C-alpha cells in the first residue's frame, strides 16, 4: 500500500531529512498549551529551501528558527545544517482526539512536501457521559428514563450536592436520583463518577419539552454543572413528517407552482392498547385545492401502528394563498378515528399555490 509521501533523496541535491513527522503528546488537559520542536536537517550538497505553506488549524501556531511565522514564510538551510520548526498548539477544542499540523514545501526533489503533525488526546477534568438527558419520545401514560454519568479524571470522588430542574413544567414531571458508580463500572482512566438517573412522568401536555438540570458538585474544577433535558411526549395518535409543526398541529407546505402541484407525505402513528384496533378515515378536506389520502397501516408492534398520510395539491390547482391567520387563513384536514378517546384529529395546512 502507498501513502501520501515517500522519500529517497539523491546525494547531490538538497535533502530534507527529519527524524519524525508526527509527535504524539499522549494526553493534555483542555485549555492548556504545549509545544514541540521538529528539526529539519539538510543532508544534501545544495541549500535546502523551506516554505511554510499552511497549517490545519489556527489553534496551532508555527515558529521557524525562533520567529513566529504565517503561511508564506520561508527559510534556507545550508548543507549539513538544520532548521527548527516549533509547533505550539492550544487545546481550545472539545475533549477527544486531536490532530493538527503544518505543511512545508521544500526544494528537495524527492521530498517536496513535509507535513508535520502533532496528535494525542485532549481530556477534560470532568465530563458528562452523555452530555444531556434525552428522553426521546415518551408515551402518555408511560414513563421515560434517561441517565448520565458525571465523571472525574482528576478528583477521587464525585458528589452531587444539590440539583434542580429549571423549567417549572418539566420539573413537576421529572424525578432525579443520584446513584454511586462502582470502580469497576468507571469509564477508562476515570477516577470517580456519579450516575444521574432521571425519570419523566408525563402529566397531560403533548409535544416537545425542554429544560435543564442544574447541579452543584464537590468538584473543584466543575462545581456547578448544567445539562439540557430534552424529549417529546406523544399521545396515542401523533403525526410526523416533512413540514409538520407538532407544536401548532400545522403542515407547512413549500410554495408550489400551479402547473407542478406538490405532494407531502406524513406518518400518522397510533400507539397504546388501541393501536391495532383504531381505524382512520379522511372525514373532510378544505379547501378543494387540497387532497388527502391514507395509505395501508403498518403494524410495527401490537401497540404501535403507522399509517401514511399523503397531502396533495394536484397540478392545475388555482392560485391561492393560505399561509395563516392574516394571510388567507389555513386549510384543514379532519381525520375521523375509532379511538375511544380521540374521535377526531384536525390538521391545519399552510400552503401557497403560485400561478
Amino acid at each position: 500500500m502507498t501513502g501520501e509521501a515517500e522519500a529517497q533523496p539523491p546525494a547531490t541535491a538538497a535533502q530534507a531529512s527529519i527524524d519524525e513527522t508526527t509527535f504524539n503528546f499522549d494526553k493534555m488537559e483542555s485549555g492548556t498549551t504545549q509545544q514541540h520542536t521538529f528539526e529539519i536537517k539538510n543532508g544534501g550538497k545544495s541549500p535546502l529551501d523551506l516554505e511554510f505553506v499552511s497549517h490545519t488549524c489556527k489553534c496551532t501556531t508555527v515558529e521557524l528558527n525562533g520567529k513566529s511565522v504565517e503561511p508564506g514564510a520561508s527559510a534556507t538551510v545550508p548543507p549539513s545544517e538544520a532548521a527548527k520548526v516549533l509547533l505550539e498548539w492550544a487545546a481550545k477544542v472539545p475533549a477527544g482526539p486531536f490532530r493538527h499540523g503544518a505543511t512545508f514545501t521544500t526544494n528537495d526533489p524527492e521530498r517536496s512536501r513535509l507535513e508535520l503533525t502533532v496528535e494525542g488526546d485532549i481530556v477534560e477534568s470532568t465530563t458528562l457521559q452523555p452530555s444531556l438527558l434525552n428522553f426521546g419520545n415518551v408515551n402518555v401514560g408511560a414513563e421515560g428514563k434517561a441517565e448520565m454519568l458525571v465523571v472525574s479524571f482528576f478528583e477521587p470522588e464525585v458528589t452531587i450536592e444539590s440539583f434542580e430542574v429549571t423549567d417549572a413544567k418539566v420539573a413537576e414531571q421529572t424525578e432525579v436520583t443520584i446513584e454511586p458508580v462502582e470502580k469497576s463500572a468507571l469509564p477508562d482512566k476515570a477516577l470517580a463518577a456519579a450516575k444521574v438517573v432521571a425519570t419523566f412522568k408525563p402529566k397531560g401536555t403533548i409535544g416537545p419539552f425542554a429544560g435543564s438540570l442544574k447541579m452543584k458538585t464537590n468538584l473543584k474544577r466543575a462545581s456547578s454543572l448544567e445539562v439540557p433535558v430534552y424529549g417529546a411526549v406523544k399521545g396515542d395518535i401523533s403525526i410526523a413528517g416533512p413540514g409538520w409543526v407538532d407544536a401548532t398541529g400545522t403542515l407547512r407546505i413549500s410554495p408550489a407552482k400551479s402547473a407542478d402541484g406538490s405532494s407531502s407525505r406524513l406518518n400518522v402513528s397510533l400507539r397504546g392498547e388501541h393501536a391495532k384496533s383504531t381505524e382512520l378515515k379522511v372525514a373532510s378536506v378544505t379547501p378543494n385545492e387540497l387532497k388527502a389520502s391514507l395509505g395501508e397501516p403498518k403494524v410495527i408492534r401490537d401497540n404501535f401502528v403507522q399509517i401514511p398520510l399523503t397531502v396533495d395539491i394536484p397540478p392545475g390547482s388555482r392560485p391561492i394563498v393560505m399561509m395563516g391567520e392574516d394571510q388567507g387563513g389555513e386549510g384543514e384536514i379532519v381525520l375521523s378515528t375509532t379511538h375511544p378517546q380521540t374521535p377526531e384529529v384536525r390538521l391545519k395546512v399552510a400552503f401557497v399555490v403560485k400561478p
Partner: protein
Amino acid sequence: MRIPTLAAIALAALGLLAIGGNAADPAAKPKIDPIKANGEIFVGWPKPEFALVISGELDGYLEPCGCAGLENQMGGLKRRETLLKDLKAKGWPMVNLDMGGLVKRLGVQSEIKYRYALESLVDLGYQAIALGGRELGLGNIDAVSGALMNIDPAKNPVVSANVGIYGLEESVEMGMTDRFRIIEAGGKRIGVTSVLGAKDQAALAGRGDIAVISAAAGLAQVAPLLAAEKCDLQVLMVHGDPAEATALALQFPQFQIVATTGGAEEPPKTPKAIPGSKSLLVEAGHKGMYVIVLGFYADPKTPIRYQRVPLDARFVEGTAMKEKLVAYQSELETMTLAGLGLKPVAHPDGEFAGSSACADCHTAASEVFKKSPHAHATDTLVKLDPPRHFDPECLACHVTGWRPEEYFPYKSGYLGLTETPEMLQNGCENCHGPAADHVRVENGEVDATDQEKEALRAALRMNIVANEGNKDGQVFEEGQVVKNCMRCHDLDNSPDFDFQKYWPAIKHVGKLGAED
C-alpha cells in the same frame, strides 16, 4: 450549518479598505492556493479495479465548515459532489460509504437537516450509510423514521448490524435499515455493515423507541451472513472510536477495512494497520472536511492506495447539491422560526431597543459602528445565494438579540426582516446587553432616580481590562469583552480573530468618553 459571516464580512471590508490604501487591515491575508496548501491528490494513481470513498461525521455541515471566506474553508456537499463526479468520469467503479453522524445538534432544524443530509448522500450515490449516535439522539425519532421511510426502498443505503428504529427486526421489515449490504463494483462484491459503538449506545439508554444490542453481539449475528456472501472485500463501519473499532477488528478479522469515527478532526495522512490483524483502520475526520479514497488493485505489490482528499476550493460547487441547499433553505423559510420550535426567551438583563435607539445619543460610537462589518451583517445573509436569513444557525450571529451559541432569539430580539426591522444587523446590544430600560429612562418615558439612571448606564458599559485578548500572553479569563466577541468569532467562523488587532478597526467611545 454556518455560512460566511463576520470574518467574511471583515474580509469584504478589507477589500474596500485596501482600495482606499489602508494596508494595515487586521484581517488581511494572502489568497490561499488550495493545492499548494493541502497538496496534490491521486498522484501516480492508475485506474483502480474499484475505489472506496469513505466519509463520516458530517456534523451538520452541509456547507463548508466555518465562515472564514469560502476559499479558506473545507468541506461541503457541493464539493463532494464534484469529487465524486470527477472520479466517476474517470471510469473508476465507486463504492461510497458514510459512517453516520450526519447532524450534531438537537431540535427541529436538525431533524430537517438530517433528512436533507441523508437524501443528499443518496442522491450522491452512497451505497451504505451508518446510523450515528447524534441522529438517533434526535428527540423525535418519528422524524428520523420518516426520513428513512421517504427514501426509495431500492436506493435506501442505511445499514446497521446492531441498531434498529423501533425494533431491530421492525426496522428492517419497514425498509428503514438493513443489517448489511452487498455492493457490486468493478466486477467485485463488497460486503458492508456498520455498528453503533458503546459510548453512543449509553446515550440511548432508556430509549424505548430504539432497539440496540452490543456491537459485538450485532456482528456475531451479521458476520456469518456476510461471510456466506463470498465477498471480495468486507468493510466494517464503526460509529464509535478508534479503540473500539480496533478491538472489533481483532474480534472479527473477516473485515479487511475497518472505518471508524471518533478520531481527530483531521484524519491521518495514512491508514493504520491494526497490529495482530490484516485489517486497515481508516478515519475520515469531522465536519465533512475530508473524505478518504481507497483504490484497490490487482497488483500484489501495491494492492491498495490511500488518499486523504481535502474538500477545499479546488473543487467547484456541484449543481445538484446546490439545488438541495436551496430547497433546505426554502423549507426553513416555510417552517418559520416558530415552526422550528424557536420560542423567544426572556433575556436576564431586559429587552432590546435596537441600534438606532443607541445612535440617538451615542453619535460618535454609532458612526464607527455604521462603518463596521457588524452594521451590515444581516444584509450579507440576504444577499447570499441562496439567502440564509431564515436559517437560525446563521441568524444567531447576524442579527440583534439572539443567543449566538444556541441559535435562539431573546424576547424583543430579531424575528424577521419586516417584523423587527430595528433588530437587523449585529447591533450594539449584542455586546453591551439589552438597553430598552436604559433608553426608556433616558428618554423620560419612565421615571427614575439619578442613582437608577446611572446603574442602567453602568450595566451597559464595557471595560476592556489591561492586555485583554485571545492570544497567548494576553488576558482572557479575567476579562468579559473578548469572551463576548468569541461567541461569534470562534475558531470555525473567525479563525484569524485577534482581538487586539481587530479592536482598533471598531474602537469606539461612548457619550461620556469611556469605551462603552
